[in-house]
């Protein structure tokens, strides 16, 4: 196959990948979009085989490895529970990162195959591109591993900080640039390996100071990095499909990070520098003076909701942890039978990754046209009888609007306090992730339901 024809096919896959993302603009077209993505990938892999044209023993090996990886991937995709989606995505990002490192290594060791020159005499431009691809890939790899461990709960979600941390990261970043420069000048392979090792270290150092609830930003950011790594390798291999995809994924991750940061009213750098959301002892002890709370049970909650005209459900990470989405849908079904109008309100940073709550509700067969984003539904709280807050906390805290001293001041929140009554399912009165007390607990129209989210919801169903 001629190089030009090959390039045209890669361009076609690139376009199909664009259409795959375009399809996600609505759930209606999304399934078709995913199909475009699969076709694009099949074309890219197919023409690569044809272009190499080496249908010998090697071909069988490649096909074998493809099947091994593919079946492992398919197995994971079918087995994984929806609540584990954040860890899965983090894990997948680490694989893209490591694959980029490996491809860069083979290009460095055997540059002739990729027309990049010969070992010890690789084209400078290619050397720069592959170093960047390998470095970003390595950062993505170890960074995603740390994110995975934190999301899985194997590693504590609280930030790990030490003196001079940011200075160290900056120094390592500068050393990396210096090493890439020396690598280009000397072509000595030691520098190449050092670049990869330091990048692995940087990946770890970048993610450890970031706390558990900032994970939506971290995952989006690593998503973006995996794209830039792919683009770097795309330049090295002079492959259009890879360059287009890398750019798409890179900007997609960057936009998601931006949306997540805006949902918390924090700057990207504030999140990246980390340290937020540590167990801030001072603020929790300050609220020691017991304020009166109204304590309710499942019976009260069922009574309130049964007699309401409209109910808005506000889910948060706690719902995912308790796996309460199916019980919640059942509760809503019986409410609907009683003629209650029920909708769902989702805050942009609810959960541990962008869109986390939507997927869980979809899994529980909640129709997506009953689920609304913050801007769409926020005015409806004023006309709603009951707000049922399940597993959310900071995103409902009115302090964000009233107290300029508060760490979450300015964060857009769901105006839950405007509804006639608020049912707040929570295990205890402990402050949320931001380490601050939620004013909503002590309001007259708030009824606290102290229990596990799933258990409480099931008890309410019994009382309906």
């Amino acid at each position, binding site marked *: 196959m001629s190089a030009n024809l090959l390039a045209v096919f890669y361009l076609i896959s690139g376009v199909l990948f664009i259409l795959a993302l375009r399809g996600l603009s609505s759930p209606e077209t999304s399934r078709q979009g995913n199909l475009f993505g699969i076709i694009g990938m099949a074309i890219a*892999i197919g023409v690569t085989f044809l272009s190499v044209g080496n249908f010998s023993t090697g071909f069988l090996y490649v096909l074998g490895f*493809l099947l091994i990886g593919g079946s492992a991937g398919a197995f994971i995709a079918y087995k994984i529970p929806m609540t584990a989606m954040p860890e899965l995505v983090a894990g997948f990002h680490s694989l893209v990162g490591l694959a980029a490192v490996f491809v860069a290594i083979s290009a460095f060791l055997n540059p002739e195959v990729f027309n990049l020159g010969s070992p010890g005499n690789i084209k400078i431009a290619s050397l720069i591109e592959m170093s960047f691809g390998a470095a970003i890939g390595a950062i993505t790899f170890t960074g995603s591993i740390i994110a995975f461990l934190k999301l899985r709960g194997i590693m504590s979600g609280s930030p790990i900080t030490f003196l001079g941390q940011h200075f160290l990261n900056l120094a390592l970043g500068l050393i990396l640039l210096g090493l890439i420069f020396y690598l280009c000048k000397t072509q000595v392979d030691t520098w190449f390996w050092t670049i990869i090792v330091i990048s692995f270290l940087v990946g770890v150092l970048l993610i450890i100071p970031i706390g558990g609830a900032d994970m939506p930003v971290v995952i989006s950011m690593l998503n973006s990095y995996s794209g830039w790594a792919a683009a770097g390798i795309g*330049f090295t291999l002079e492959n259009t499909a890879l360059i287009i995809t890398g750019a*798409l994924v890179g900007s997609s991750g960057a936009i998601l990070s931006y949306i997540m940061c805006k949902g918390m009213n924090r700057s990207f750098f504030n999140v990246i520098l980390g340290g937020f959301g540590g167990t801030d002892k001072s603020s929790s002890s300050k609220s020691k003076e017991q304020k009166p709370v109204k304590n309710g049970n499942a019976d009260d909650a069922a009574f309130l909701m049964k007699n309401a005209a409209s109910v808005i459900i506000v889910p948060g990470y706690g719902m995912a942890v308790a796996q309460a989405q199916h019980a919640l849908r059942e509760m809503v079904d019986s409410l609907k039978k009683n003629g209650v109008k029920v909708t769902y309100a989702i805050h942009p940073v609810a959960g541990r990754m962008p869109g986390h709550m939507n997927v869980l509700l979809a899994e529980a067969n909640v129709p997506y046209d009953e689920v609304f984003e913050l801007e769409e539904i926020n005015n409806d709280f004023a006309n709603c009888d009951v707000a049922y807050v399940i597993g959310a906390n900071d995103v409902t805290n009115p302090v964000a609007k009233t107290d300029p001293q508060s760490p979450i001041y300015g964060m857009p929140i769901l105006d839950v306090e405007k509804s006639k009554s608020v049912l707040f399912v929570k295990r205890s009165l402990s402050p949320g992730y931001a380490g601050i007390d939620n004013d909503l607990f002590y309001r007259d129209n708030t009824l606290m339901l102290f229990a596990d989210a799933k258990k409480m919801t099931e008890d309410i169903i019994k009382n309906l």
Partner: protein
Amino acid sequence: MEIDPFIFRLSIFILSIFIGYYVVWSVTPSLHTPLMSVTNAISSVIIVGAIIAGLAGDFGNIFDTANIFGFLAIILAAVNIFGGFLVTQRMLAMYRKKKKDK
């Protein structure tokens, strides 16, 4: 004077960033999780580099260090391609509109 092919690739890259920017802003927020899993799957198109690296060389020395790294990359990328597209499909299949409401 001839233009370096690198400049053409750079143009594709920059324009694709802009395409990505506009396309991703039009993605509905409720599909942000599938967006992440599908971008993950498509970025594994890096497998083309791995295949070229894996198939390099003569029949005899197919287990050269460079080839082995290529093979490892093929496995990793294949996990992502199949895993990413299938899990996206599984998620998207769950998004249903309100239909039979009693």
